[in-house]
């Protein structure tokens, strides 16, 4: 190739450039660190309804900082001609492709995450059996906090080949389900109405959203699924607990018996 026979030939790694690169890296690091603190801080101080918007801004700004830093560094150390870029990208691509395949894949998936938005900070997602609220979206991985207050780190790499379940998809509408297992001998219409009222009268209910009562007959009895939306997705456990406790009390007042354990394992489904 004319004019650039090796990587070292095309890199302008003199002392001035190295100092400038170091300053760019430090500056980018400081900006990212500040960004990681400022957005969550802002999010904690705005009304709940705008919180997710601020949380989602952090990874986008971080990506912008990284991209600007990379462009500044690359243009400083090489003359960005077509030949130079081909040589540089070929060499780095080959090296990184072998050594950090998964890491690079996660980084790329992280960029795609910011574009496609399969999950955002504040979303409730389930990936590979882990269910929780997205706390942050990093360059390589997302962190979720489960209902048991455990942090799970999920590499963005999962985006390529895993099913990702998003409960609220950027909104505040997260459907919750309370299950009731009843003895089959009862007035189903009456119970359905009673359970509907249980959800409707919950202080946690988002009244603007619909309520559903799904009834399924099973070999062991009748399965009721009471589906409704809480005002705050974070209140899902309290909401389900509230519906369950008040639902049981209401069913007991209607003299409805609850299903007993199945005779044979596996019959519950």
């Amino acid at each position, binding site marked *: 190739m004319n004019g650039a026979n090796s990587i070292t030939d095309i890199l302008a790694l003199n002392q001035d450039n190295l100092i400038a690169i170091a300053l760019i890296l430090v500056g980018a690091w400081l900006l990212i660190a500040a960004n990681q603190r400022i957005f969550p801080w802002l999010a904690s101080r*705005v009304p*709940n*309804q705008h919180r997710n918007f601020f949380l989602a801004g952090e990874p986008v700004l971080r990506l912008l900082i990284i991209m600007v830093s990379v462009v500044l560094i690359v243009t400083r150390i090489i003359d960005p001609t077509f030949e130079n870029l081909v040589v540089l990208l070929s060499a780095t691509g080959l090296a990184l492709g072998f050594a950090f395949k998964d890491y690079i894949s996660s980084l790329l998936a992280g960029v795609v995450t910011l574009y496609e938005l399969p999950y955002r900070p504040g979303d409730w997602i389930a990936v590979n059996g882990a269910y929780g609220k997205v706390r942050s979206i990093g360059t390589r991985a997302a962190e979720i906090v489960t209902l048991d207050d455990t942090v799970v780190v999920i590499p963005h790499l999962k985006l390529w080949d895993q099913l990702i379940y998003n409960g609220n998809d950027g909104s*505040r509408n997260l459907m919750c389900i309370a299950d009731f297992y009843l003895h089959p001998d009862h007035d189903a219409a009456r119970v359905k109405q*009673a359970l509907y009222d249980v959800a409707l*009268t919950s*202080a946690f209910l988002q009244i*603007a959203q619909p309520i559903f009562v799904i009834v399924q007959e099973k070999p062991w009895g009748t399965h009721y699924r009471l589906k409704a939306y809480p005002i705050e997705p974070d209140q899902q456990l309290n909401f389900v607990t509230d519906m369950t406790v*008040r639902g049981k009390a209401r069913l007991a*007042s209607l003299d409805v018996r609850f299903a007993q354990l199945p005779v044979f394992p596996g019959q519950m489904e």
Partner: protein
Amino acid sequence: MTIWEYVPLAEYTPPTPSVKAISENWFAELRRRFGAGKAQAEPFEERESLKALPAWQLQRIAPAPAWRAAAQALDVRLEHWLADRQSQHIPLLFIGPPYSGHVEILQLWAELHDWRVIEPPASEEVFAGDLSWLSDQIVDDQPWVFPHLERTYLRHTEGLGLIRRFFDQVYAGNLGCGLIGCDSWGWTFLRRFWPEHLSNTLALRAFDEKLLSHYLQALASGGEDQHLLFRQSDNGKYVFPPPEDVAVNGSVHHSDYMQRLAVHSRGILGIAWTIWHNSLRIEPDEEIAEEAQAEAVDLPGKTVWVAPWSQIKHPVMPPGAIRHQAFVLHALLLHSGLTGEQLAQVTPLTADEVTEMIYLLQNARVLAESAGFWRVTAQGYPVARQFLVDNGYPVDEF
């Protein structure tokens, strides 16, 4: 200018804030949230030279709204409905936000027309779901007015049977001709039971700046040409357009107080009047001796000072326990007031937690008790509503 005007529910629009007011509110909210501004929480700094008006002067300058004229104006809106009332099987619904006077208007209207006023059921009757409460009050197809639909249910698993039976009777046309009043918050809950195609609903039009100025100025003059001047106490700007002899060459500055009052109160007259009532001040030497009351001394040309908007001590939501406060406020608004015992029944809070929240919100002047029922105060309503909006709660359309 027509003060009392009724509009279909879908056409109701509260006053909208100006860009200036939006930006100022936004900055004030930012300052409050980020800890820089405490102005809202500080008590109103009374200027030494000004003092609150004595009760008798307040009564004269800013008497409580008399709803009789509103009740009479309702006739105009209901002219066709009344003419055709024999064939009306579905009652008309009159929806109003808290302190909008819809209950008083309906009661006075019923009195004017000699229609029977139906009293709301007791809490026990709501739980029992027994319609005998109603059948005792509706007799011989006489027309009726029921101003308190929101008292016909409790947000409790056993508190919805009565409202369902009541609506069943309404749809079936068994109750004859009637006029139902409902609080706007109760309606956000009860409209789930009301078919959308039955859109026979109306509301009192919101009081925008112009209407509010006209009404409050008319209240102050008592229907006479008294020429009282209302000026803002910090800058002397005129709250109402001054008389022509005062306005020299059009150079009189006009205060934005009324615009802010209309927006803050969401066009609800009872709330606007309460704030207005508490904003009036007077110079000590202009106070008229009490013995002069009997002589009905006029105050022509005198100035009544109005506290500037920024110095009015609006209630502020207490910090902490946000979820519990929201439970209590939302439940109270949905039912247009509840007893402490009922609050514990319709929220997931224990009796102790309810008591604690009531104490907290009462101290913040957001709640007040009347006849055993806790209600959101008129001054606390705007802040309580905004608090619920900020926390994602569904709110009324008013």
